[in-house]
């Protein structure tokens, strides 16, 4: 409990003029009420204005490219600043592929961590592990990028990549994904680093929704003789399914928009390759690399078009996540 200070503390600006008549004080209070309320409404409107402003600025900036290339902007793989031919297909492909890899690796790990913290770990271990996993989210993305390029990629090229190619390379379908020289960098590496980066976000939501499960449900299942895994599989997961998917969506939103870490390791090549070990590009890494150097209106406008597409994708993903998380009850 907090008690609002000593009498001298409580004497704010309005209380100093005790000689004023009550009527005028009430009136002044009402004016200040309106002013203060106006300031909060104005700040709320600023948030609205910013989001509208971002959308408008991107749409206006992108209009030249969209007019010139039409719907073909989405499907063309051309990216040639010299002939001023631009298409967004390669960056969109790279963004989606790296994010899918990040989800495929990140979701099981996040689920494992959330399970470990909520159901397995002894009480004294819960907090340190929880904090450590949350610190993964605090490491700046540029640090992930440096570590990825200078430490992880060489190790990956020397150890894991040859092993994966030897064991998966001859399989149908999967084999095509691991072809190419083991360079360390490329779309798979980018996806893997994104996976580590989204783990703390997905884990946090999963932990939150797991604790929402009523104790009676849990204990009834245990009382019937269920093992911990059975309680998780048949009671907790069905109860929290919607929230878990919402958390995954939030993580996906992060992965889609992540910039610096990806820019370091993806190789920055405007191409679509079947192999995940080949360099590629994402929307955000294209912007980071080329926006400052873009010459000519069409080039800049195409880059803004990429930004608009990215903003729309993350918007849809977020809206979906909110819809699902809203249903679990409360704000998470």
């Amino acid at each position, binding site marked *: 409990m907090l008690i609002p200070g000593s009498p001298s503390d409580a004497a704010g600006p309005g209380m100093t003029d005790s000689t004023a008549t009550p009527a005028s004080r009430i009136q002044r209070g009402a004016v200040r009420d309106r*002013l203060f309320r106006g300031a909060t409404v104005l700040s709320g409107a600023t948030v609205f204005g910013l989001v509208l402003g971002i959308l408008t600025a991107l749409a206006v900036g992108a209009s030249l490219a969209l007019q010139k290339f039409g719907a073909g902007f989405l499907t063309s793989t051309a990216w040639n600043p010299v002939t001023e031919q631009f298409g967004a297909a390669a960056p969109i492909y790279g963004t989606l592929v790296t994010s899918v890899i990040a989800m495929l690796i990140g979701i099981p790990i996040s689920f494992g961590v959330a399970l*470990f913290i909520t159901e397995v770990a002894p009480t004294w271990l819960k907090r340190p592990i929880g904090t450590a996993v949350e610190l993964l989210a605090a490491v700046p993305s540029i*640090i992930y990028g*440096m570590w990825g390029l200078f430490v992880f990629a060489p190790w990956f090229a020397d150890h894991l990549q040859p092993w994966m190619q030897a064991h998966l390379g001859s399989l149908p379908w999967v084999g095509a994904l691991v072809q190419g020289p083991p360079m360390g960098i490329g779309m798979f590496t980018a996806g893997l680093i994104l996976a580590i980066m989204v783990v703390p976000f997905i884990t946090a939501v999963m932990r939150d929704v797991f604790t929402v499960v009523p104790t009676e449900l849990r204990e009834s299942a245990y009382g019937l003789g269920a093992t911990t895994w059975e309680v998780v599989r048949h009671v907790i997961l069905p109860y929290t399914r919607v929230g878990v998917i919402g958390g995954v969506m939030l993580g996906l939103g992060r992965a889609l928009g992540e910039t*610096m870490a990806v820019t*370091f390791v993806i190789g920055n090549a405007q191409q679509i390759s079947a192999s995940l070990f080949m360099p590629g590009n994402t929307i955000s890494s294209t912007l980071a690399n080329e926006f400052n150097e873009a010459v000519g209106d069409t080039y800049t406008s195409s880059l803004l078009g990429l*930004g608009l597409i*990215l903003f729309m994708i993350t918007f849809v993903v977020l809206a979906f996540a909110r819809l699902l998380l809203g249903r679990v009850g409360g704000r998470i």
Partner: protein
Amino acid sequence: MMNLYQRRRLTNLLSLSLSALATGIALLFLFWILWTLLRNGLPYLALSTFTQSTPPPGSQGGLANAIVGSLILTGGGIIIGAPIGILAGTYLSEFGRNSRMATLLRFVNDVLLSAPSIVIGVFVYELLVRTMGHFSAYAGAVALALIVIPIVVRTSEDMLRLVSDTMRESAAALGAPQWKVITHIVYRAARPGILTGILLALARISGETAPLLFTALNNQFWSSSLGQPIANLPVVIFQFAMSPYEDWQHLAWAGALIITFSILVLNIVARSFLRTRRARH
């Protein structure tokens, strides 16, 4: 042959071990990254790192101008963003509450919160850099403020809502007008929580690189003019790490070490702050 009971026990053991393994993997990456920073950054951390400006390739120097620039930019971002965020959070918790307008604002705030930081950089470029004709520290601070605002809106609202209505009603019953109830009673009760939110926002923007690439850019020299491009740690780290010069790369690692550990400390301080506060309630 295993009976049903043994099989259930085994499945349980297996899945719980896998969850422990997943936790181990997550922690392994954290320690791998921190170890990398210590090993590559610590040998190049010296007093000169904090006292000298960024050098041309091949000569001695430090990161002093970048550190100061980062402090200016993050400070500017907080000064611009925090008041707007607190006031908008106040609207949500004190005036809007469950109205349709407030629900919509919460959603729009989430959209801003999840907007990729590079998109925010591009937006501020279009808004300020293009219109002013050059990169500037102002533009960088505004870009960071756009990241601060949604974080502070959210934490402020959450913390203001924790203040019980009884307290508001007691103050109102004594005849205090609403603005005074909020500024003198509710803010005071929620102050530690709101400050925590600002600290977390500060931690978040300290490492942001993408929004600064197109706004504050970089500057190899001391710059005290806010209308000019300004050196800042994240962009210096990016440029130096990607450069072919070894001494630049060494400085990049030293900078990476400084920035990461400052942010980790900020995070831990903010969290423990929040925890003691929650424990008291």
